[in-house]
């Protein structure tokens, strides 16, 4: 179930191992205009669109509904899922951040390496390698001169609690299978020549059943049947499968398992709190480059002891920032464009993440009608906001001597779930085994972020994909 990064990785690996695979994907397409959009409305950070279309966020037109209160968990029913609109950051979790998991970084190694052989991971050997093994398959995207200068200064500062390095991105950076980056600054609008990796189409790889949403799984004599609903509301029953792999994201996985009575109808979804902070830079950094990429350019890890406290991804100026500023500070519309641009060109933009332990928690409930309600658990949101503020102050202290000043008063705190780093409601070693099987089931495996025992600050996709591959390989063995 699912055609996003983990679904593609699982299907591809299974096919490679000679196993027959049927893939079910909701496959909401750009033509499905009738379905309701889920693109968050009140998030002050613009939601990325896919070449001008919001179809990656559109809900499936039929079947159970998802309602949300005080949270905004982003789900995708499109083929390739949220990888259509992601930031393409690809970094493994560092071993100290997964110290409480029932698996180790060594268990994940073969999964990381397999992904690395299939996905273009552009990056460089730099200070990050101390904590994050260099699973790199492509040369790095060239940094802007200002980011290069920042990274060089940060490297010389040699701060024990702040690790900085070049971003690692799933991008075809140089002319190889594809043309190579043109540095046209269009990344955030959707790369015009499709150099940003997205989960490849599964059609042709396995038996593909698009336009179907799984409602539930029925198990009889160790065989599993899927009850599915089509876009026009017809319900079918499919197959007799030995194993079912759920890769449809934490909310859909919860709904299916809960509807099928494999898990309780209540669960707590972990989130990595996301925030957005503009950073004023010293005039010594100079003007933005004419040619640049506009994805994340630098990763900063704030550490407490060996563990990561927060991760900040730094972006250089791009014209996209103008519309963001209009949203945050509508009064800026009165400024002439040249003046606004001049001001904004003195900024970097930081998108930060906290650990799940410091973030709000989301309550998922399945009601009697089979719909899912998502809401904020207790007062966890308030404490997360306090932590974000203290974290930004900490970054300000660290960045001061590098000629960077995070503008704390302009910090935007995302609603829980908006950062798309959610999961952990069915943790391995606790509510599921190391093969992602919920305790009450056999032959049903969850391979998406639902089974991560925690959500450390930082990119999540690489580890989710590597874990999916690990489970497939362990099962095969």
């Amino acid at each position, binding site marked *: 179930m699912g055609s996003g990064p983990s679904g593609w990785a699982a299907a591809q690996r299974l096919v490679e191992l000679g196993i027959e695979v049927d893939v079910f994907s909701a496959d909401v397409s750009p033509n499905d205009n009738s379905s309701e959009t889920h693109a968050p409305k009140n998030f002050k950070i613009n939601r990325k669109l896919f070449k001008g279309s919001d179809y990656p966020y559109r809900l499936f037109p039929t079947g159970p509904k998802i309602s949300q209160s005080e949270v905004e968990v982003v789900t995708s029913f499109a083929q390739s899922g949220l990888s259509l609109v992601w930031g393409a950051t690809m970094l493994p979790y560092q071993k100290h951040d997964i110290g409480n998991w029932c698996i180790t970084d060594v268990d994940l190694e073969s999964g990381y390496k397999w992904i690395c052989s299939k996905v273009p991971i552009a990056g*460089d*050997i730099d200070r990050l*390698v101390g904590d994050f093994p260099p699973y790199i398959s492509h040369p790095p995207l*060239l940094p802007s001169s200002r980011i*290069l200068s920042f990274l*060089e200064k940060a490297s010389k500062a040699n701060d024990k609690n702040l690790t900085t390095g070049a971003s690692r991105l799933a991008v075809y950076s*140089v002319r190889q299978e594809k043309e190579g*980056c043109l*540095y*046209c600054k269009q990344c955030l609008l959707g790369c015009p020549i499709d150099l940003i990796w997205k989960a490849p189409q599964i059609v042709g790889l396995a038996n593909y059943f698009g336009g179907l949403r799984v409602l539930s799984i029925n198990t009889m004599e160790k065989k599993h049947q899927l009850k599915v609903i089509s876009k026009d509301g017809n319900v079918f029953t499919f197959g007799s499968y030995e194993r079912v792999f759920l890769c449809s994201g934490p909310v859909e996985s919860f709904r299916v398992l809960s509807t099928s009575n494999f898990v309780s109808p209540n669960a707590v979804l972990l989130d990595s709190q996301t925030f957005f902070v503009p950073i004023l830079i010293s005039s010594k950094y100079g003007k933005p480059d004419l040619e640049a990429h506009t994805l994340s350019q630098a990763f900063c890890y704030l550490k407490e002891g060996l563990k990561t406290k927060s991760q900040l991804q730094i972006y250089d100026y791009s014209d996209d920032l103008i519309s963001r500023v209009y949203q945050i500070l509508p009064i800026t519309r009165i400024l002439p464009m040249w003046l606004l641009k001049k001001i904004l060109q003195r900024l970097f933009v930081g998108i930060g993440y906290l650990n799940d332990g410091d973030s709000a928690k989301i309550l998922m409930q399945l009601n009697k009608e089979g719909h899912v309600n998502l809401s904020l658990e207790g007062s966890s949101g308030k404490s997360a906001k306090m932590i974000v503020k203290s974290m930004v102050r900490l970054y300000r202290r660290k960045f001061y001597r590098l000629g960077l000043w995070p503008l704390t008063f302009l910090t935007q705190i995302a609603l829980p779930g908006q950062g798309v780093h959610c999961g952990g409601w069915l943790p391995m070693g606790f509510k599921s085994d190391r093969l992602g099987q919920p305790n009450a089931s056999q032959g049903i495996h969850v391979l998406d972020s639902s089974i991560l025992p925690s959500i450390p600050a930082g990119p999540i996709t690489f580890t989710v994909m590597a874990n999916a591959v690990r489970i497939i390989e362990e099962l095969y063995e």
Partner: protein
Amino acid sequence: MRVVVTGSTSAIGKKIIQLLKSKGMSVIELGGKNSELWRLGRPLPKDLQADTLIHLAHDRKLSLEENNTAIDLLVESFKGYKILISSLSSHSKTESKYGLSKRYAEERFLEKNGVCLRVGLVYGTLTGGVYQTLRKSISKFPVLPLPFDGKPRFFFSHIDDLTSEILHFVQTKQRGLVFAANYWPHSLRDIVERLAQDLGRNCYLIGVNTATTRLLLKVTKLLGIKVALLDSLKSLEHEISNSELGALQIPNTRFRSFNEELWI
């Protein structure tokens, strides 16, 4: 296999000759001011029997026209497979004499189905080259000016990676325009600071801003001063663009990061 190497007395030349010989290849060494067989500006001897030419020689004292004529003579007088060791300063915006002459050479080599390796700042176990000159300057002078505020970026090519890349082309005879360096750039300021630290020197660095550097270049041009250093300075004025870099063929060899030398 017989390989002709021009500029055989250069630091890179010596290394590549050593490597080719270790692989059992027969090498004809051409170059050096006292070479009786061939000098830059003359055609290759007619009786020269070789499969491959590796062209490293360059004379900064020759004018652009003289350099171009030398390339024409060389290309026309050798019929086998040709490898040009070019430079990342031979990009489309270059105005330096060195960059322009390398660019012309690239055009001629590509016309004749050769390969051109655009090399960065070569470092490693070398006895000469720009990198060593930079090291020597840092260990010699307590104060160093940084043109263009130390912002020009450099890409690095480790000598061992470069020679194995050259060997790859000698063996495969592939064609194209290849990026023969590590992809992560370093600013001039960063390089000088790192080298100073490595040498245990406490250099005082003075950033000369872009306007002043350009003014200096104009004044020297008006005064008709012709020094190789000024041409190098001119090559820093315009950098190879990111898109032009991205369009180059990727190397077969994984060029090690300059960082790896420092941190790993």
